[in-house]
């Protein structure tokens, strides 16, 4: 077997990304803020915010996706009943425990009623922090949903301009759009590379690489992605006899890293997923020339990911994104992994399963929480799924 010229390069980058992932005090974002007076950090939750506008204001967009399995939730549980998902309680924990006390603003995107209501809670619990429920249209006509969205973007641009004490210019927005276009291209390259050679870009590594983009400045993250891609391409790793699966339902509350690792260990290469969608929500480049907010709106309306938080106006299109993902990535099955009590993922699931069934694509489903500890049942289920796929393929 050939060996890479620099076998430690990949490991070094992954280690750095892992350190960012594990750091629940967001030290790198704190350092970024402290490096220059007047810098501001704007937190945002899943599923999508136009990070370009935050960046254009000279601020750091900081993805807040819960506390994971290493955060002990002490205060957060006092705010939620047992039948509500885990991400809002660990996010409250991050807030109450002072871990995100350096954040100057929080955006709560339109994804579900829990995050929606959390926006109001945040206003009450942290009244001195700028806080906004970020609504997006469920109507995709330029002259209806588009106009609404452009006005919402204008309000956000205005608010962030006020926060920094200077309006955001069109040129600043264009520069930011260009920076995020490049970043999205790199994320897509990374996904394409994994699809092609999943043994050289394990799912957990890809996850950590993309996750780093939630805390790093976009330029720095793009550099990291480039370096990882070069290192991963150069490093030959053994190919396992795994099946290829698409992972879906993990677009909000994050699975433990161990869960992602467990899937591969049990025989499933993840060749596509809906983790951390904000990094590739817009599926193509956003136009640079012209009105930047209009361009962001057009990209949102016509070139954005399909997911449960969006209304699908065309019944024939329902779930087809998943079928296309399976075909594009030559996947052999789909794993539905949804956080417990997640309305979007769990309400959507039967409809997607019907579409897959019709398309003859095998699937399994399970639930998790960000602090799930027991991986054995998931390994057994995924392993059995992988075995059954191989048996069917051989038949």
């Amino acid at each position, binding site marked *: 077997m050939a060996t890479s010229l620099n076998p430690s390069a990949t490991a070094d980058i992954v280690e750095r990304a892992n350190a960012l992932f594990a750091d629940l005090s967001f030290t790198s974002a704190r350092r970024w803020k402290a490096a220059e007076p007047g810098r501001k950090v704007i937190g945002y939750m899943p599923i999508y915010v136009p990070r370009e506008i935050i960046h254009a204001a000279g601020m750091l967009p900081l993805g807040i996706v819960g506390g994971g399995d290493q955060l002990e939730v002490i205060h957060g549980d006092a705010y939620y009943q047992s039948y509500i998902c885990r991400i809002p309680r660990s996010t409250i924990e991050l807030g109450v425990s002072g871990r995100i006390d350096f954040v100057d603003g929080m955006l709560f995107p339109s994804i579900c009623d829990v995050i929606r209501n959390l*926006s109001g809670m945040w206003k009450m619990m942290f009244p001195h922090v700028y806080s906004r429920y970020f609504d997006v249209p469920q*109507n995709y006509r330029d002259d209806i949903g588009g106009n609404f969205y452009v006005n919402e973007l204008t309000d956000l641009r205005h608010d962030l301009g006020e926060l920094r004490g200077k309006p955001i210019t069109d040129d600043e927005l264009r520069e930011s759009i260009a920076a995020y276009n490049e970043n999205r291209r790199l994320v897509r390259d990374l996904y394409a590379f994994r699809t092609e050679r999943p043994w050289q870009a394990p799912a957990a590594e890809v996850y950590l690489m993309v996750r780093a983009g939630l805390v790093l400045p976009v330029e720095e993250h793009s550099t990291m992605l480039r370096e990882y891609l070069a290192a991963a391409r150069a490093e030959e790793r053994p190919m396992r006899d795994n099946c290829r699966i698409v992972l879906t339902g993990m677009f909000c509350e994050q699975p433990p890293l161990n869960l992602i690792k467990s899937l591969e260990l049990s025989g499933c290469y993840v060749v596509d997923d809906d983790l951390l969608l904000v990094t590739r929500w817009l599926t193509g480049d956003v136009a640079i020339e012209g009105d930047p907010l209009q361009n962001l709106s057009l990209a949102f309306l016509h070139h954005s990911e399909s997911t449960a938080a969006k209304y699908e106006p065309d019944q024939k299109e329902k779930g087809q994104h998943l079928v296309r993902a399976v075909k594009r990535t030559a996947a052999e099955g789909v794993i539905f992994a949804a956080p417990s009590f997640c309305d979007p993922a769990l309400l959507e699931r039967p409809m997607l399963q019907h579409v897959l069934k019709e398309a003859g694509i095998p699937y399994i489903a399970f639930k998790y929480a960000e602090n799930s500890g027991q991986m054995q049942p998931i390994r057994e289920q995924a392993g059995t799924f992988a075995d059954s796929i191989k048996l069917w393929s051989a038949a």
Partner: protein
Amino acid sequence: MTTQTKVVTSRAPVKEVVKDASMVKQKAMMAAHYDRLTSAPETGDKVAATFVPGNLNELIMCFDLLNNLPEVNAIQNGLRRTSGSFVLEAEKIGHSEDVCTYVKSDLGMMAKGNIAPNGKKFPDPDVLLLSYTGCFTFMKWFELLREQYKCETIMLHTPYMGDGKITKNMIDYMVKQLKDEVIPTLERVSGVKFDIDRLREHLKQSTKAEDDLVRVLQSAKTKPSPIDAYFGGIYYIGPIFGAFRGTEDAVDYYRFLREEVEERLAKGLGPVTPDGDMGKEKYRLVVEGPPNYTSFRQFWKMFYDEGAVIVASSYTKVGGVYDFGFRHDPDKPLETLAEYCLGVYTNRSLPMRIDMLVNYINEYEADGLLINSIKSCNSFSAGQLLMMREVEKRTGKPAAFVESDLVDPRYFSAANIKNRLESYFQMIDQKRAGVDAAA
């Protein structure tokens, strides 16, 4: 005017249930509506399914469409105790145990023949008017129904009042959706041309009924309250939240109801309960959250047995908030529909909801707040523990928290709820004793 009717229920043990005249009238209206709906295949009437929050009944009627509300059907199934088997059926065919039980009751009912409360089959809807207002689940619910019925579906997106205000952008967006998408599609489906003057006429009727409803609800400011604004209130809101807002029937009903309540008020009477007139009013409460429907009477009895009356509730505002001044405005027909949708209770931010509850406790001189937290309703439930603490802090009145579900009988634990309520009433007594001692 005040008459009470004893109704013999079919459920064992046989017991006479007391209903006041307005309840009997309301029941007859609902029965007539179900008959109209189930006769649609014979009469040729077309049917629009939609939701209670963001219910555009006046607009639907402009196209001669019958309004069918899946939430109301789920409630009916809860009250009749058939929802439990429907929920199980839906779970059997792949729906998660974690999601809204209204949805599962509805889908389970479809799977088991789609039988209406009158024993006849529901007609398939000709159009699903997805009025996406204040509840994420609505969007998925109608995508699920669309998959089954394969009928035209119209999305009307109501933006959320995250910042506690209605903006011009929100109104413009909604009016544009109404003009360019909702109305043209309803015209196409129904074959009826839209007439804005017809809409204005319906809106005029809505306003009259809304005035009377508010007078009924606000009668609870009197001591003793002549109504129970939660358990009784659910009967009162039935016509206006359902298929009757904008009709003469609704105007008649709310006039009748108002007169009935005013008569009770004049006589100093308390609410009518299923066991007859309530005894002495001992506790005045505000309730947040929907009730449990599968054990509705048992739940209610836990209150009236203790002399507790609900003087205001948030749940009776999910289909429209009228007691802070909003009325449908015939002079701005489309804008008023937008404003109505935007203002429904679950489309209000959490701070707005808290303001409302605090206002109720103060205005209605309540002893405290009770939250009935619903397991499968995140729109209501997420954030309620903070709401409880904030209301306690701002009013100085004690609050309590019980948990149940909408129409899933598995999540109604009578003993637990009764224990908590008894403790809560003791807490109120102690608080009063403390106040008296301090005085």
